[in-house]
């Protein structure tokens, strides 16, 4: 009886700890979201207002009226198209690496090491290359860049997923007279559908959350939401209403997407090191 009682107490203590921890970690996000629903008076009130008087959407209306919300659209276009491109190119490349050992371990290792290069070191020459080709501030330029930036990740992850599926099915399909491409479309892709989906989500998130490439390679036309947020940082005072509203517009889609992706989160963010 005593043992059970002690167990209940520790269980309660752990639960309390978990609640406290979660509240602590979520508080900054709460503060950001709440800020975007405040009126100007509430934002610049001292002492600060912890609960807004109501969910007023004025800050969002302003973003849409001024056309600033277009930055979210730009992020969406660039992230989705680059995800599609990186997924297609990366997956077929991964298939070649996984099944034919093309290039051996050296090629695979070279590809993943590309992922580790710091953006700041390469963004400078890429910028000069883009100026030369007139790709600065174009959708194409940013899509190409995110595709390249995400390729190593896609190749690495998809190689792992493809190695997980039994090769016998592909051999059977070949015997049945499928061409190599048909095997890829009709056997391999459907077999690793979950992996494709999970990898695509992370690819999308990386592009969506990028700041430094967008900062350097855009001007006014294809500004993404992350760059747009920094436009509201002022020398004297910051435009908190716009900063918070734009940040929320950029954060909500990610939360929704990741909410559906819990199952794949661990494998995705550990570069496949944890099978999860």
């Amino acid at each position, binding site marked *: 009886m005593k043992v059970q009682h002690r167990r209940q107490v520790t269980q309660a203590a752990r639960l309390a700890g978990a609640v406290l921890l979660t509240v602590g970690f979520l508080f900054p996000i709460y*503060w950001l979201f709440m800020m975007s629903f405040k009126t100007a008076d509430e934002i610049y009130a001292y002492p600060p207002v912890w609960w807004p008087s109501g969910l007023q959407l004025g800050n969002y209306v302003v973003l849409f009226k001024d056309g600033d919300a277009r930055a979210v659209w730009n992020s969406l276009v660039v992230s989705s198209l680059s995800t599609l491109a990186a997924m297609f190119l990366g997956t077929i490349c991964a*298939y070649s690496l996984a099944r034919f050992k093309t290039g051996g371990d050296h090629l695979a290792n070279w590809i993943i090491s590309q992922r580790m290069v710091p*953006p700041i070191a*390469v963004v400078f020459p890429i910028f*000069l290359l883009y100026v030369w080709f007139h790709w600065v501030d174009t959708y194409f330029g940013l899509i190409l860049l995110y595709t390249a930036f995400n390729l190593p990740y896609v190749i690495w992850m998809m190689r792992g997923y493809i190695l997980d599926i039994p090769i016998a099915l592909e051999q059977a399909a070949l015997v049945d007279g499928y061409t190599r491409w048909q095997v890829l479309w009709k056997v391999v892709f459907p077999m690793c559908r979950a992996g494709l989906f999970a990898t695509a989500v992370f690819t999308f998130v990386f592009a969506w959350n990028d*700041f430094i490439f967008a900062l350097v390679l855009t001007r006014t036309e294809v500004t993404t939401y992350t760059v747009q947020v920094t436009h509201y940082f002022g020398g004297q005072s910051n435009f908190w209403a716009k900063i918070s509203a734009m940040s929320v517009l950029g954060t909500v889609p*990610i939360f929704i997407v990741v909410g559906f992706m819990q199952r794949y989160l661990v494998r995705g963010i550990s570069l496949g090191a*944890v099978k999860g």
Partner: protein
Amino acid sequence: MTRDRQFQTTLIAPSIFVLLLIGVFPLVYLLVVSFQGITMTANDTSFHGLRNFAQLMQDTRAWESLLHTLVFTGVALPLELVLGLLMAQLFIDHLPGRPVFVALLVLPVVVSPIVSGATWSLMFDNRFGPINQVIGWLAGREVTLLWTIQPNLVYPAILVAEVWQWTPFMFLLLLAALSAVDKSQLEAAAIDGAGYWRTFFRIVLPAIWPVMAVAILIRGLDLFRLFDIVWALTKGGPGTTTETLSIFTYVKGFQQFETSYTAAVALLIIFALSVAVTLALRRVQLSR
């Protein structure tokens, strides 16, 4: 057989082309330009030998930015690791609502670093932020600490934001690793009378080490290129107090347009990191 070979090559060709264009071309370009003398005012493409590299050796601002980067990495990485491990310990045994807690706790990881920087500048605002208000309640008087301006406060401020965002990353990976530890070994150790720490160092740590090593590698590399959070909070200021290597490179290249000099800096960063990554990859078993 030859058809197979052709097929294999067709599959990898587009990826390799894109990676060469965006990954390798810049390297070659850096190599050329870093030996020239291009600045904003002079398009001097003559051979300057190692002049830019010599200049870098004497550039205290560059070395200070490296030092700042190492300080951020050296403080944040162990903190994130230890806090993540403690959090994972809290959640390892059955707990009601565990999946919900875990799902909520990982949210900071997926927030864009620039947005988390912005969020924390809201939090740390001297008048309108909640942090000074809470400290004020505890201190019993009005507090207006200038978190992003006072030199002795900016480091804690940036580190809090950084640790807040990435501790859940460590937590998630270590929780997965801890869940995979062989329970029968733990029971055997308990029967043999091994204490908590002994069990931890002899059984648990070796079992989770592969995952931990990958997590450290990923976070270490990310911290080494720290840019977004610092940019949103201080832009490297006040002065150059919090300037990281990435911010230094950005300022040199895109605000002062010292093209050749920036190329030299970028080249050295890539070189140093390649060596580090090659050594690390050899020790860490990424995937299979």
